[in-house]
């Protein structure tokens, strides 16, 4: 029997699940080997659980979603969170530093119609997660690696090194050193292939913190090069701002 796949979405932009449809060359092969039991973006065919593999996109921002993820967990043998929203709370986790009701008033004339939590939190804060795939958005080749690994009964391999390693492998000139551009590459988890520096800009950390990131040293360097405190805080507080290491460092600087 083919293993069954389900894809669920919480607060997110849809980009990460779109990555699966972006595997144009592999999509039909994947569909051949997996039984797609639930993937609303792609098919109206929907089956109830249990599912062998569940991909979860998005963060938890409503009381209803907090309940829903628990139900999904119960129906899932192997649950993989995909993307910065699901693994770190996403860009919408910026509300975690603010007054959410005030945010709501900024967007909605009748905030009372809408139920929302004061926070946006990663899936792992709510249920056990078997594997996390980083990125905003995820890398489709890494997604295929996860799918391929699960099909072949092995653990997915997604390297933990920093963006710098890939940056050098691809022969990009360091934007920090050659231009003084602030770059989060040295503290950011690999996965994107070091895109930004190869386009002459600094990494903004969309794959979240690397293992053992030395944030204090890097932000000291930024500030020594003249990056204002506020910009340093904002650089850390974006798509993975709520990831523990980035969060702690932005809080530290903000409180300085």
């Amino acid at each position, binding site marked *: 029997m083919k293993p069954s796949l389900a894809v669920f979405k919480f607060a997110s932009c849809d980009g990460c699940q779109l990555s699966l449809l972006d595997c144009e060359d592999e999509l039909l092969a994947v569909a051949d080997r997996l039984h797609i039991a639930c993937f609303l973006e792609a098919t109206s065919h929907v089956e109830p659980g249990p599912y062998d593999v569940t991909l979860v996109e998005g963060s938890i921002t409503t009381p209803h979603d907090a309940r829903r993820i628990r139900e999904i967990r119960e129906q899932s043998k192997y649950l993989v969170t995909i993307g910065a929203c699901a693994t770190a709370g996403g860009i919408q986790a910026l509300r975690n530093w603010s007054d959410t009701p005030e945010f709501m008033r900024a967007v909605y004339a009748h905030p009372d119609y809408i139920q929302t939590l004061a926070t946006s939190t990663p899936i792992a804060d709510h249920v056990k997660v078997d594997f996390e795939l980083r990125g905003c958005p995820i890398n489709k080749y890494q997604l295929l690696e996860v799918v391929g690994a699960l099909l072949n009964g092995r653990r997915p391999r997604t390297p933990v090194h920093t963006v710098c390693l890939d940056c050098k492998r691809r022969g990009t000139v360091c934007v920090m050193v050659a231009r003084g551009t602030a770059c989060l590459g040295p503290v950011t988890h690999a996965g994107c292939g070091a895109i930004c520096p190869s386009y002459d800009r600094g990494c903004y950390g969309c794959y979240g913190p690397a293992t053992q990131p030395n944030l204090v040293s890097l932000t000291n360097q930024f500030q020594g090069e003249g990056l204002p405190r506020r910009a340093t805080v904002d650089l850390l507080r*974006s798509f993975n701002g709520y990831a523990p290491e980035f969060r702690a460092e932005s809080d530290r600087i903000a409180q300085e």
Partner: protein
Amino acid sequence: MSTEVSSPARVIKVEALARVEGEGGLHVRFRGDRVEEVQLVIFEPPRLFEAFLRGRSLAEVPDIVARICGICPVAYQMSSVHALEAALGVQITPEIRRLRRLLYCGEWIESHALHVHLLHAPDFLGYESGIAMARDWPNEVNRGLRLKKHGNELLEVLGGRAIHPINVAVGGFYRAPRREEMAALIPDFEWGLAATVELTRWLAGLEFPDFERPYRFVALAHPDEYALNEGHVATSTGESIEVTDFESHFEERQVPHSTALHCVSKADGTPYFVGPLARVNLSGDRLSPTARRVADEVGIAWPSNNSFHSILARGLELIHVYEEALDILKTYRGLARPRVDCPPRTGVGCAATEAPRGLLYHRYEVNDEGLVVFAKIVPPTSQNQGQIEDDLRNWIPHIADRDEPAMTRSCEHLVRNYDPCISCSTHFLRLTIDRS
């Protein structure tokens, strides 16, 4: 009295629509063929972008707003950079402008090819998904996937990656691609241009329900070109509105059943129609030569008031963007200055561009430190939402004689004509009939 008995109230409730981007449901209550209530329920959780943009550096805006939508991030980036440049009083160069059009072509290709093949064609042909359809229509689906891939490849070269491109900056691009990188795309695009012509002819052979409505179409129009990045707001009722006046003609209203705001015409509170069909209807004469030729061939008298023709409009637009992209690719010689300077100043600016799904309006207020003070974003789906509900209200009487699954499918099909992007559309997961 007796009518009441013979026509109990029936409720169609789709908990979660499928083959749409984002999450939403559909709730319809009708009696006989009289529709009492239609709600496109968007329960996509609020993400509050406009609020947290306040206080951020304007340079970050294109990266942040991309995350509103993973399907059309370029649209958000384009509207934002144009609006911010307007606020800063910055003029981009014609070369940057062309590259932006090219980037937009990539997104249209990706998005339209996705929608046509994987989301919408299955409705016409009776499949639950594009993947299921591939079993019987392998060539068509594979052609579609290949077209979609070209869009992504273009986005990768010019934008750095397909989803949430990293190369879009206020003032232009961080880096202009090398000539060879762009030239390498040409063979694929030549194939693609021919393939989109075949595709559109094939689409013309689908069966279109007979359902015409007196729509009010709204789209950007530009005197010299098929409008993508700029123009004035044209309507099928003959108006021509400056983008800066957008908010005095259209406004967003909040409805209790949805986290998405509904946009209506300010004057009379009525909905309007944005997207490919609106664009083809309003600017069909500025489509590329091949697209115009095919438009004449397909046996439809444009402008069309049948929303089911949207899929054909997407086919024509695919031809157009392939043709335009090819032209830009072939003449590209690199770019010495990929970005113009954007010194901070206090200002307000707005812009509208044409997302694959329709007009996308942004307005920003910035201060002299280069920070965003205020942001407003009006996405295409919130504009179409009222129109979709209105369509359903009028469509249900046509199909009231069908059984529930068929009705449900048909309603979903209709919703998908609009390629709604926020979160919702068709397949009614659960259909509740309330015959109380």
